[in-house]
């Protein structure tokens, strides 16, 4: 891993996220009550987090397929590393999501389709890691996890679609995010946050992969020492 890349990514994410915070809280005016007021500021971090966690799970999906095709452990490592980071962003997303609910509807939890979709998604990838912990043989673990990762990722569109269905029954559409109508400053804030989070995701992934490869090194070194003693 190139140290320089890590620093650059780190710098990008820190600067972009700091500037975006400045933009969100200082530059941007508070929008009018009709447009949900101060709570709208959540949106600028909420949406990038959603997209990143979705992307992270897609990476898991693709890496799982590649693993089954090539049987190379580096894809398995990529798959579960990305899933772990996807879960981290998923948790962040849930924090923003339930706050949004509280502000928009006055309760911490509504069965908002997006929230439900992500709740299911978190459970799915929680199950993914539970499955991994239940298989000790490395090859089998990777194979099973890859199959379940594919199933879990296939579940995302179904889950999104079917949770939309409850929505149509329980609540008529209360609010649609498309109605925001972003102006110039809003777009800048959103793009900055998005760039910062993307850099952060790549950075986290690189660190996580590095950690996993170092753990591999530890095993190899231990084996070498043991084989010398024999």
């Amino acid at each position, binding site marked *: 891993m190139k140290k320089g890349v890590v620093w650059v990514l780190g710098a990008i994410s820190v600067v972009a996220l700091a500037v975006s915070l400045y933009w969100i809280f200082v530059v941007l005016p508070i929008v009018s009550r009709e447009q949900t007021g101060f709570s709208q500021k959540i949106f600028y971090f909420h949406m990038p987090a959603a997209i990143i966690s979705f992307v992270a799970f897609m990476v898991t999906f693709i890496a799982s397929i590649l693993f089954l095709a090539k049987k190379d452990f580096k894809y398995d490592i990529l798959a579960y590393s990305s899933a772990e980071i996807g879960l981290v962003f998923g948790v962040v997303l849930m924090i923003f999501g339930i706050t949004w609910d509280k502000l928009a509807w006055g309760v911490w939890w509504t069965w908002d389709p997006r929230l439900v979709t992500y709740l299911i998604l978190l459970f*799915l990838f929680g199950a993914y890691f539970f*499955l991994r912990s*239940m298989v000790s043989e490395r090859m089998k673990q990777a194979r099973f996890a890859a199959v*379940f990762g594919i*199933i879990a990722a296939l579940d995302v569109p179904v889950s999104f679609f079917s949770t939309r269905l409850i929505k149509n029954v329980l609540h008529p559409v209360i609010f649609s995010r498309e109605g925001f109508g972003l102006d110039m400053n809003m777009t800048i804030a959103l793009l900055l946050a998005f760039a910062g989070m993307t850099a952060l995701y790549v950075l986290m992934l690189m660190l996580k992969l590095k950690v996993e490869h170092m753990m591999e090194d530890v095993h190899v070194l231990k084996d070498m020492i043991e084989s010398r003693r024999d």
Partner: protein
Amino acid sequence: MTAIRQGWAILRKDLLLEMRSKEVFTSQFLFVVMAMVIFYFAFSPNIKNLTTVGAGMLWVAITFTSLLGLNRSFVHEKDEECLDGLLLCPVDRATIFAAKFIGNFFFLTTLEVIAVPIFAFFFLTGTFLPNLGWFLLILLLGNVGICGVGTLLATISMNTRARDLLLPVLFLPVMVPVIIPMVLATNYIFTQGESMSELSVWLYTMAIFDIMYVVAGYVLYDFVIGD
């Protein structure tokens, strides 16, 4: 041709074994009836017309009961160490999936043939009868979904340390987005029973899910069976 012959041999063997022991059917039947009794006492104090919660009760009962059967779908191979025997046969792994899937589907449907009328007798008023055909279609789609993804996940879980403990953890979150349209559609039939136009969206969702997961199981089965 070969695949059909082999699939049929596996299926017939599983049916024969179950007919001899009847252990899965007996436990599933007891479970589903007791679940209904408990549901009655849980809901009846507050809800006058149990038909309004009927769809939820039905699918909760069926989903959890199906777990019992799915967990047992490999019990003979695993407990009697016959899995190697099956794997040594010149048979496509996808064929094993198809046979096990059809077997599970058959067992679950058999159970429902008995359990659902009992359920209807206990909880439902007759208003859904004109739409019986739609109701049966929902049951059919639900069973295909449960058994499609269940067969694949049961094979995974029986090969792990946790064995049958793992199946609910894997199976339920995968099933939730499908149980939602199943429950909604069933509820619609139980309580409204007039215009069927809205029903089609739910049926499509279930059908898409069914196809997706049966195909996934068929394609991915090679990776989950055996060591």
